[in-house]
């Protein structure tokens, strides 16, 4: 018997209309766990670098995490993996909600789509009955609208629906897949779904999910629940509101937005507005949210209330979560009311809430600076808010300038030219980032921005405090009950971190070695979450989370029946993390691509930065160009990756640190001469 997982994937060939239920190899579960891990393996095996995002050979994989559908609180994420049209690399965006557990109860761990349907279709998965059905009547419909129509039409009020809106249908490079109050938004995976001609996937399941050691497993679950309660009653002092309490984060429950509105940048990620958050603004925004919000809502089997149902006068009800709350508001220099209203439309269209407002603000800045002209925006309203609605429609319909903007700031800037590239300034690896512009380079964040392959800082940070606490006594208090650390040394690192003074201050503290360890730990926890289907809001995104390196191995053993301990889990996570990188290396990603957003920090330290990246690469088992070495691949049981790299000339035999760019090779040669 398979535990925690079902042991079956659904393989759907959209070109031929063929559906197969295929048993998965339990050996793969041991090596790559599930969710992201096994997704990465499938992508490696079946999607070579010649395949482009919109090739029929590209796969779109919906993977439920290994522990989804078990009673583990908050374990409900679907990891969607494909080749991104925006980055041309491997994309893996996650969504919470209710879809992954439902898929497990229907008897499947993954839905793997390949090929393309010539007509718009939707998939209906109801336990053993799986059908491809016409969705021609749903063309152009909103994502939530589609879900509601399908549930009604199928008379399945309990079905869970993942759907795209018009943005996905029209292959906007930052189109999302929406599912109730959740969405998988980053990397344009909604565009791939649209390209495949799939409007929605409806799932209903009524089967059992088994766990290997029932009593032990439920005990672990109860411990987690108790700790969540403790954390709710004891918020962490000295950190901003959304970090003091668990959640993904609980933005919809919070009224105090001083931190975001004054520290994040407005418009095209340009303007800091110190002193913005006045009593007046607070009162107005509180009223807006209170009157729009009908209820705070949760994902499957989770007591956190990170989402909300919003009903604004004259608009259909929709659900929101997280920071989309403010992105449109800040992009357009407007108020919360505007942000919540336009987000309703954007959610129905199915768009990423980070990229979309940034793209629109970028376009308006280009107009302001004369790189684009009025001719590019025929009949556009005068006011910024009106312009945002205008641009939203143009982008989603790919009409006029909208067709260019629909490819994101990076590609749009390339196409527009004439200096537009300078305006696409807030990207990493071509993806728009949170609008953060800071002063002093921070070594931990430097490495995370450079080497993160999830294209989002919130998807790699979390375990270690973002900044030192002012006084040693605060730090001592903090580390007292910090049992989540995988090693006691991290407590010392934090204790010695000073806010100001001569010693142990940013950017030379934490030291390069410490920084590598901290970044690796933070990243590892996210990767574990993404294989298990655990929400980062109860785990990797948080200081002192209920899930951590000490109880995860126990969850996996008692849940999935895999012999697991910290070392084995660390190695497994490293294995599929390296596989994610291998997929991207094979697609051309190199050190040159691993840079933070251009103007993220005002004060930079080029020498330190170089040393940080050099050391971190080595720490990770990658060569100086960011390519996993033959040795480290062998150590992880990934010899097949090394062979492929050798065949493609990405690595060369005998040389363990090839692939360096010409300049560093030259430097080595010169060094040798001396």
């Amino acid at each position: 018997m398979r535990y925690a997982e079902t042991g079956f994937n659904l393989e759907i060939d959209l070109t031929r209309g063929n559906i197969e239920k295929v048993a998965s190899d339990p050996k793969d579960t041991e090596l790559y766990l599930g969710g992201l891990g096994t997704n990465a393996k499938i992508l490696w095996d079946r999607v070579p670098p010649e395949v482009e995002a919109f090739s029929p050979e590209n796969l779109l994989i919906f993977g439920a995490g290994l522990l989804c559908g078990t009673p583990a609180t908050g374990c409900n994420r679907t990891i969607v993996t494909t080749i991104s049209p925006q980055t041309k690399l491997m994309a893996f965006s996650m969504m919470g909600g209710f879809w992954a557990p439902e898929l497990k109860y229907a008897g499947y761990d993954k839905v793997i789509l390949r090929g393309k349907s010539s007509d718009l279709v939707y998939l209906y998965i109801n336990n053993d009955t799986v059908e491809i059905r016409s969705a021609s009547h749903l063309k152009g419909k909103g994502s939530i609208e589609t879900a509601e129509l399908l549930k009604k039409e199928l008379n399945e009020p309990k079905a869970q629906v993942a759907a795209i809106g018009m943005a996905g249908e029209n292959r906007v490079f930052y189109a999302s897949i929406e599912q109730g109050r959740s969405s998988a938004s980053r990397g344009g995976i909604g565009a791939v779904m649209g390209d495949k001609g799939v409007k929605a996937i409806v799932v209903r399941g009524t089967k059992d999910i088994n766990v290997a050691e029932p009593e032990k497993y439920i005990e672990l679950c109860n411990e987690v629940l108790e700790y969540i309660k403790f954390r709710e009653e004891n918020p962490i002092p000295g950190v901003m509101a959304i970090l003091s309490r668990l959640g993904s984060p609980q933005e919809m429950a919070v009224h105090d937005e001083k931190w975001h509105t004054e520290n994040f940048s407005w418009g095209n990620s340009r303007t800091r507005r110190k002193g913005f958050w006045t009593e007046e603004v607070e009162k107005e925004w509180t009223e807006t949210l209170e009157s729009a919000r009908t209820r705070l809502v949760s994902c499957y089997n989770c007591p956190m209330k990170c989402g909300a149902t919003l009903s604004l006068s004259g608009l259909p009800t929709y659900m929101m979560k997280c920071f989309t709350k403010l992105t449109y508001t800040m992009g357009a220099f407007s108020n919360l009311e505007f942000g919540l209203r336009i987000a309703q439309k954007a959610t129905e269209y199915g768009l990423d809430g980070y990229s979309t407002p940034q793209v629109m603000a970028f376009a308006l800045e280009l107009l302001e600076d004369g790189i684009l002209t009025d001719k590019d925006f025929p009949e556009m309203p005068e006011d910024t808010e009106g312009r945002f609605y205008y641009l939203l429609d143009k982008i989603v319909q790919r009409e006029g300038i909208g067709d260019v903007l629909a490819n994101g700031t990076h590609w749009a800037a390339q196409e527009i030219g004439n200096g537009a590239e300078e305006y696409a300034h807030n990207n990493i690896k071509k993806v728009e980032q949170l609008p953060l512009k800071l002063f002093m380079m921070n070594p931990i964040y430097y490495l995370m921005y450079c080497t993160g392959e999830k294209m989002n800082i919130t998807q790699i940070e979390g375990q270690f405090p973002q900044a030192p606490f002012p006084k040693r006594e605060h730090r001592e208090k903090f580390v007292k009950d910090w049992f989540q650390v995988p090693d006691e040394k991290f407590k010392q690192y934090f204790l010695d971190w000073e806010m100001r003074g001569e010693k142990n201050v940013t950017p030379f503290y934490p030291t390069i070695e410490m920084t590598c360890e901290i970044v690796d730990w933070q990243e590892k926890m996210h990767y574990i979450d993404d294989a298990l289907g655990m929400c980062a809001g109860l785990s990797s995104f948080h200081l002192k989370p209920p899930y951590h390196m000490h109880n995860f191995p126990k969850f996996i053993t008692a849940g999935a029946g895999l012999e697991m301990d910290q070392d084995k889990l660390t190695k497994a996570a490293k294995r599929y993390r390296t596989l994610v990188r291998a997929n991207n290396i094979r697609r051309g990603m190199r050190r040159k691509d691993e840079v933070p957003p251009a103007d993220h920090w005002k004060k930079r330290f080029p020498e330190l930065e170089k040393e940080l990246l050099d050391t971190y690469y080595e720490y990770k088992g990658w060569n100086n160009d960011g390519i996993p070495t033959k040795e480290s691949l062998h150590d992880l049981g990934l010899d097949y990756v090394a062979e492929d790299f050798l065949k493609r000339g990405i690595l060369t035999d005998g040389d363990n640190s090839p692939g360096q760019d010409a300049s560093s090779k030259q430097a080595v040669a010169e060094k040798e001469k001396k």
Partner: protein
Amino acid sequence: MTVEKIDKKKKIIKTIRIDVDKCNGCRACEVICSAFHAAPKYSSNNPARSRIRIIRDPLRDIYVPVYAGDYTVSECAGRDKYMIDGKEYDECAFCRASCPSRDEFKEPDSGLPLKCDMCEGEDEPLCVKWCHAEALIYEEREEEAEEQEEPEDLEIGLESLADKYGMDKIMDAVARMNEKD
């Protein structure tokens, strides 16, 4: 003239107070209920076997946790709509019966009826324990009630099978099973 005296007895009634305004629809109650009632205990989970269900329609802000009550052979006349606080509820949303007109509270494989047993043996029903939103509050109160013998699970199950297949078929099946033994 003598009045027939009905035996009344004091007994503890176990109840759950349900606050629909506090429910946030996470369905943890369904998860732990189905896990507790799995055999062996906690070995599997499946909300479709849960004895509590959230009647849930997020866009219309409807969240009603309902417990499985008694099995009933026939549909009732209850098809009315209730308007509460501007929201429209089906009468069935508040009904605990396992009945022919809906698929709530039936085992997904056999169709046999399910009934909440307040997690016998636990300090409180586990759905209550797992509901951090405090939408479910366990309460005990003393009531006078007529004495009545509770039908056993087996009896309820057999009755529902008889309703579904007819008594003759059931007898045949029992006879066949006997022969095999």
